[in-house]
């Protein structure tokens, strides 16, 4: 009962503050960027017409900054965890062994025979994706940044930005006509990162398949010996390998980016208490997407290394190819 009263009081105070501010100032325009914005350009200059883009040079985007932070966190964790490795672990080493061991047990459940081959990539992908998803949910990740001048050419947009913002004289806000480019952005909310992960995963799946089955692995794509139906099935298998890249990339990108958009829109509609359950759900989604990516990689790898039927001889694959 006491918690319910506290929630109701917070909602009432929030509603009063919200509608008071709403009457006083016009609503701020919502800004969502699908792609990662450039913070600075190495060996080039920023595009003044479009904020967050480089006219020339190598763009340092906000998701690249976050990726480097995630990499440093992972490398430092492992370095400090196994620096003075003992047989009986204590302290921080205990924690690292617990986390890695839990995922290793999970991977053994998927494929017991080849787990030593598959585990390094799957575990790296799991921890990288989980940390990068969670870092994007860190308070301040999408709201602290630098101000870049907004494009004047965008007719309707210029009129909206000319109005004074509700928070115009608060600290950490941009002037009217300027756009906030956050310093940190979840790496998984950038399609480049997820596409790279999907490509690495699918290429590794083909590598393990070719390594364990030899050229006979190719018979599942090019099968002309057993009639036209298997030829068509092989063709569909070949296309589905390419669809895997797209589905890996867009599943991760779509889930994390959609989560960020939901949080931004809800905080825009009513900033008090309403985004809280969705924030909890996004933490769950962040963990779930990391699990799904690594489990699917493990399952596809284990499927690629298993010969199907009894017709996987090497010269057949070479002849068919």
């Amino acid at each position, binding site marked *: 009962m006491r918690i319910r009263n506290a929630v109701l009081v917070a909602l009432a105070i929030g509603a009063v503050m919200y509608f008071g501010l709403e009457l006083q100032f016009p609503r701020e325009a919502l800004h969502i960027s699908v792609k990662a914005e450039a913070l600075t350009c190495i060996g080039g200059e920023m595009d003044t017409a479009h904020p967050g883009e480089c006219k020339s040079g190598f763009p340092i985007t906000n998701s690249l900054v976050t990726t480097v932070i995630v990499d440093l966190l992972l490398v430092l964790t492992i370095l400090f965890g196994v620096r003075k490795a003992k047989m009986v672990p204590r302290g921080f080493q205990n924690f690292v062994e617990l986390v890695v061991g839990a995922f290793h047990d999970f991977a053994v459940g998927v494929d017991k025979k080849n787990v030593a081959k598959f585990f390094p990539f799957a575990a790296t992908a799991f921890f990288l994706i989980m940390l990068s998803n969670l870092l994007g949910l860190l308070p301040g990740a999408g709201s602290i940044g630098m101000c870049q001048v907004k494009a004047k050419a965008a007719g309707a947009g210029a009129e909206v930005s000319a109005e004074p913002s509700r928070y115009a004289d608060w600290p950490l806000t941009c002037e009217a006509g300027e756009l906030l480019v956050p310093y940190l952005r979840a790496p998984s909310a950038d399609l480049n990162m997820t596409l790279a992960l999907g490509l690495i995963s699918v290429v590794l799946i083909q590598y393990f398949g070719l390594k364990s089955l030899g050229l006979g692995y190719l018979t599942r794509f090019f099968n002309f010996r057993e009639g036209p139906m298997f030829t068509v099935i092989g063709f569909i298998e070949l296309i589905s390998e390419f669809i895997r890249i*797209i589905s890996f990339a867009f599943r991760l990108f779509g889930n994390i980016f959609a989560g960020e958009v939901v949080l931004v829109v809800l905080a825009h509609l009513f900033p008090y208490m309403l985004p809280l359950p969705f924030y909890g759900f996004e933490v769950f989604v962040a963990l779930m997407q990391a699990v799904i990516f690594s489990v*699917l990689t493990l*399952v596809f790898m284990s499927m690629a290394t298993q010969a199907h039927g009894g017709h996987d001889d090497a010269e057949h694959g070479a002849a068919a190819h």
Partner: protein
Amino acid sequence: MTDEGLRFVAMALAIGLGAIGPGAGIGVVFSGALQAMGRNPEAEGMLRTYMFLGFALAEVPFILSLVFGLLIGFSII
């Protein structure tokens, strides 16, 4: 209706209609896996693997419609 507005309607329709089938399919996958786990708890590890595989296969049409919806919406095709 302007050309740009028509594009946004097309994007919304592509993504929204493409989400119907995979939504039902993912529900069927997980309900079947949960029933099987309830009946035979020893097979849970193997079932979990195939559950995620079925989930991934059921989600492919939605991913495709999402990709095509974004391609239409950002006027790439």
